């Protein structure tokens, strides 16, 4: 079933097929006389199956991938729209295979976190997972997202997974753009329907910010197409222009786009770079385009925050490394200094903002902004350690930040608020939870022995020779990161237990199933980062060949 030529299509379209089955189930409900409950459970099972199959395919692809070369592998390549030389072209290199694996893992974890199952009666009652919501008049709150309009939720979650996976495996610019946009709509609905009190505002803000960036990206894509040299299509014909990213990278290395005619006196490469970069920077999110992120995270249901932080944010740096770096090499070198400055602002500014947060989820959201700054800084340095650290940071942050959002969800499901100040002494009531929170916070602040430390260290050591001052400032700001996390632990878990939280159930199996695998990977990667580094290394070294300022 899984062949090298079809494995990426499996990983991409298994969730979509499951989503189609969910829709079919809903349509057939009156005919088959199914109860609402049966349809809900069927949708949940289909979601687990769809994202499980996608994860299996991603793992199989990871195992099939040969990390000893920098070549694109597991290729599937056919013509799609002949009139415009558009191809259905999937494939992975070291950069994308790491993101494919991450997407598979995080999608499955998010699907598990979307289930009301395995919660235990008390925890389910507290979370409002029962029909009609939670009965305690002292703490009224709506039904849990996992029991509200379930088939719609599952179908959209699966559609989102297809969009994410497709974005990372598409090697045709047009196809990439289609997958990129396909993600927007499910995200809008998942935040807008199943989100918190200000969900409408957060959902439309996310949608508008991302679309504004992506239409600029679209213009840049069209421009790159028209300035590309003739290339061979999948069928063997020669086309005047191409969307093939591998071919475009080859042409970019040969300086094809530097020869393009300037537009209104500006060099084409610089304009294209800026247009693409803004589109991707909004997704990262890079200061000053980051303001949509805290709103989206705070209002989104837990699994959607997990996907947002774990996968969606990675698409920004991924796009920059897939488009800007190989295609527009001169412009990338021209902009490297600016990228480093923005990265530094992300790191320092967001860390200070974290210190002032009262809401746990907002704090974690801003910490994501801060951590994505490391990726920007490492990328801008263009040294072997810097770029590998940047991509490793995408991977480790992709594991750690979902943990953070999951633990925030755990306490929200019980207490129905996230105000750090109102907790206290929770370690006594929820010892297992306190331990997991400790693990995830320490991983995020870069404790040696955990995954986050390795990537931060590599970024610092790679960026230091190029941006010495910036690196020193960024390294010092890690102290602030430690401060906000430790202070949060202090306020939430230590001291006297607030009697309101007496008797809360500790972690249940639903939460363990989603948290422990991530925690295990964070620990393993902390000691053995080579597992990822050996796969991404060759591709990244080729990518920066000849661009390093050293």
């Amino acid at each position, binding site marked *: 079933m899984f062949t090298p030529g079809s494995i990426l299509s499996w990983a991409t379209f298994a969730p979509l097929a499951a989503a189609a089955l969910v829709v079919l189930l809903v349509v057939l409900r009156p005919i088959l006389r199914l109860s609402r409950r049966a349809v809900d459970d069927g949708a949940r099972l289909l979601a687990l199956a769809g994202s499980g199959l996608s994860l299996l395919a991603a793992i199989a692809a990871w195992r099939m991938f040969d990390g000893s070369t920098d070549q694109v592998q597991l290729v599937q390549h056919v013509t799609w729209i002949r*009139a*415009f030389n558009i191809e259905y072209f999937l494939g992975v290199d070291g950069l994308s295979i790491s993101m494919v694996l991450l997407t598979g893992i995080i999608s499955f974890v998010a699907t598990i976190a979307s289930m009301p199952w395995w919660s235990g009666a008390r925890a389910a009652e507290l979370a409002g997972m029962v029909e009609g919501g939670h009965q305690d008049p002292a703490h009224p709150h709506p039904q849990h997202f996992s029991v509200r309009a379930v088939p719609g939720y599952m179908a959209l979650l699966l559609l989102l997974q297809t969009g994410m996976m497709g974005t990372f495996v598409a090697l045709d610019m047009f196809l990439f753009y289609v997958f990129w*946009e396909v993600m927007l709509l499910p995200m809008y609905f998942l935040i*807008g329907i199943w989100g918190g009190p200000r969900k409408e505002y957060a959902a439309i803000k996310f949608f508008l910010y991302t*679309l504004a960036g992506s239409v600029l990206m679209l213009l840049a894509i069209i*421009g790159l197409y*028209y300035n590309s040299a003739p290339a061979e299509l999948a069928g063997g014909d020669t086309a005047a222009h191409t969307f093939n990213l591998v071919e475009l990278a080859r042409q970019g290395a040969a300086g094809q786009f530097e020869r393009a005619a300037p537009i209104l006196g500006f060099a084409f490469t610089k304009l294209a770079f800026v247009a693409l970069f803004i589109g991707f920077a909004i997704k990262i999110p890079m200061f000053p385009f980051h303001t949509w992120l805290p709103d989206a995270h705070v209002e989104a249901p837990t699994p959607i925050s997990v996907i947002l932080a774990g996968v969606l944010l990675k698409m920004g740096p991924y796009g920059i490394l897939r488009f800007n770096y190989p295609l527009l090499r001169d412009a990338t070198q021209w902009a490297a200094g600016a990228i480093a400055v923005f990265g530094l602002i992300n790191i320092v500014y967001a860390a200070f903002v974290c210190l002032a947060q009262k809401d746990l989820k907002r704090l974690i959201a801003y910490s994501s902004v801060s951590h994505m700054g490391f990726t920007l800084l490492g990328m801008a340095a263009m040294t072997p350690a810097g770029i590998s650290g940047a991509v490793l940071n995408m991977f480790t942050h992709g594991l750690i930040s979902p943990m953070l959002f999951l633990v925030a969800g755990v306490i929200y499901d019980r207490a129905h608020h996230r105000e750090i100040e109102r907790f206290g002494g929770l370690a006594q009531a929820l010892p297992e939870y306190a331990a997991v929170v400790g693990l995830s916070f320490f991983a995020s602040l870069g404790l040696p022995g955990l995954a986050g430390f390795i990537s931060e260290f590599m970024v610092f050591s790679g960026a230091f020779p190029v941006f010495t001052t910036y690196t020193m400032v960024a390294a010092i700001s890690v102290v602030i990161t430690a401060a906000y996390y430790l202070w949060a632990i202090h306020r939430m878990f230590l001291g006297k237990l607030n009697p309101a939280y007496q008797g809360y159930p500790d972690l249940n199996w639903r939460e363990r199933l989603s948290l422990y695998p991530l925690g295990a990977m964070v620990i393993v990667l902390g000691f053995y980062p080579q597992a990822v580094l050996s796969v991404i290394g060759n591709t990244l070294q080729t990518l920066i060949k000849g661009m390093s300022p050293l």
Partner: protein
Amino acid sequence: MDLLPLVESNLTSLAWFRPELALTAGPLLVLVLDLVWRRSPGRVARLSGVALLVLAAAAVLLAGQPEGGQALFNGMIQSDGFATYFKWLFLAAGAVTVVVVALGSEVAKERVGEFHALLLAVVLGLFLMASASDLLMMYLAIELVSMTSYVLAGFRRGDRRATEAALKYVIYGGVASGVMLFGMSYLYGLAGTFSFAELGPAVAAALQGSGPSLAAARLALVVGIAFVAAGVGYKIAAVPFHMWCPDVYEGAPTPFTAFLSVGPKAAGFALALRFFLSAFRPREAQEGAAALLEAVPWPAVIGVVAAATMTLGNLVAIAQTNLKRLLAYSSIAHAGYTLMGLSAASAAGAQSVMIYLALYLVMNLGAFVVVMLVASATGSESLLDYRGLAKRQPFTAVAFVVFLLSLTGLPPFAGFIGKWYLFTAVWARTGEAGGGWYAVLLVIAALNTAVSLYYYARIIRAMFLDAPNAAEPSPLHPPLGYQLIAGAFAAAVILFGVLPQPVIAWAEQALGKMGG
């Protein structure tokens, strides 16, 4: 004067004119049968059937038309693949309108025959607009469409909004056609011909002079082209000739509004493409084309109009709460996008306009069918009554989302393919000398896309995110026919978004057969 060749030309031309003849006979047939069946119970179904048969007959005759471009009636009209492409669009729009009128109740039962007869006359006018290749024919075709449209816009006689709509339409239309006629008189004075094909060389020759006579000729040319363009701009509702559009869209019966938003708009573009590309084509090896463009830089002017049209349409649409008005401003914005293709002044630009109009027809008719569907069940076109629609009519709500996102231009829906072609056609001109402003136009269009999402998403928000007006929302039971049509359009929007190749190839082929 020897009349014999003229008569002969007219007689041979009839072979290419059969679809139009069918459409000429159609209204008369419908009117007669309307009287015959005055008291019969199944009048609406029968008359609609007859109207559909007339359209089908025109379609059969159109399909069986002899190959190749042909100048008919001494060059008054041009029968070619380009015109045929648009004629198919008009037939499709006409057929959908006939069906939705029959299903709905907006047109009173006893007046359905009258409506269908007038509608068939409009379709005939659109056919002539798409094939007119002569200034006089252009004027006559536009007038035929306008006159019948005035009546149809004010079809609901008792309704104040309808009366206002019709009156506004008549006054704006009258002014526009007067202005256009005035412009034509200048062009005729300058060139001594009405024919599009001869207009370009003749005007170029008039620009050969020097001194004051040249300045006068230039001024006359600018006025002439600008005034003719104003007449066309009124038909496609381009800024600043768009003021009639929201009121007419709101006041007219919704099926006719839907028709108005795709039919006459497409015909206006067909006419504009033919007028500008066959008479004032730049870049081609036409004698004096450079001097002509220098005197009248029409691509740049149309580019400015396009930017203004899309920006105004989108910004004003944000404030609308009546769905028909909202879709009216949205259609103004879409006219702006489509004008970009015209301003590209190239074969690729013309092709992109054709593709966009075909895809726009599918998605916009689909959106209007949803509006009719909801109005037939709730009696309201207000955005407030769309709240909670996802719970009351999930199928319709999902279909509407497909149409709205396609209108926004998001993949994988048809609207994205259309926008993609417009953008690429314009982009292809940016690299040329003096083409830098095309890049600015593109950025404006791209930002407009983001703005348009805001108001389209407001509808989505109302349907899916907002709580229903009633605590216990009751399911809606709209006519099954509407649901089937909406479903078919939604499927087509997705299909053309994923597999656009047939539409693209068809438009390319049709453009290759543009004569004159």
